[in-house]
């Protein structure tokens, strides 16, 4: 069994704030991350795939195609953006590291077949 891991980087700003909670609860749970003006991070994204390589190509998948998928579906939308305001999924859901990971996974799954199995 093989695993292949590829790292990507993007920089974005966000603010953690759950609309269901009071202002005081938000400050208590998220601390500095609740600052209404937001703040930024240099995010490091690791995409990991698992399986067996194609015997003809020796590849678990084409990294060139994976790069294109990540660039088009994640980096183009996320890099140098304010996630809360510019990504639909985070308009009403706090862009915690967990939720950002879930959204990236969803986007990659959606484009996976066309980008990598075609």
């Amino acid at each position, binding site marked *: 069994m093989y695993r292949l891991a590829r790292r990507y980087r993007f920089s974005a700003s966000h603010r953690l704030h759950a609309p269901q909670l009071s202002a005081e609860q938000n400050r208590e749970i998220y601390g500095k991350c609740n600052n209404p003006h937001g703040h930024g991070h240099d995010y490091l994204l690791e995409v990991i795939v698992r399986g067996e390589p194609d015997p*003809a190509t020796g590849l678990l998948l084409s990294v060139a195609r994976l790069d294109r998928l990540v660039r088009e579906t994640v980096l183009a939308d996320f890099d140098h953006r304010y996630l809360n305001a510019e990504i639909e999924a985070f308009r009403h859901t706090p862009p915690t590291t967990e939720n950002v990971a879930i959204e990236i996974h969803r986007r990659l799954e959606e484009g996976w077949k066309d980008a990598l199995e075609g």
Partner: protein
Amino acid sequence: MKITRRAEFSASHFCANPALSRDENQALYGEAANPHGHGHNYILEVTLDGAPDPVTGMVMDLKQLKDVIQQEVIEPMDHRFLNHEVPPFDKVIPTTENIAREVWRRLAARLRTSSALLDCVRLYETEDLYVEYFGENAR
């Protein structure tokens, strides 16, 4: 308990399947398809799984592990053009996946002891890309 030893080697390679056209190879392997080759500073991490010997407190003597990696991998591959100088890469495309499997093949027999087994070969081609191989029986 797992123990990991890290080693480095620098080598050149290119990735192209002779049965495919130049454009197909380019689409599949990207810039790595250039037949003149290009180089990487590969970082290899070899992980053993086992229980420490009750007397020595060691899963395996790390010096011995270092020597085996040196003899089986670093000496034959360091500062070589893999496709031209290191079999089986004259016939097997030296993708990161295939190099990881070849490293496993070279190490597995020599690292099998009464208390430890080869668990994983992790090979970094760059800081941003690595492959892990867990052997053909792993799921």
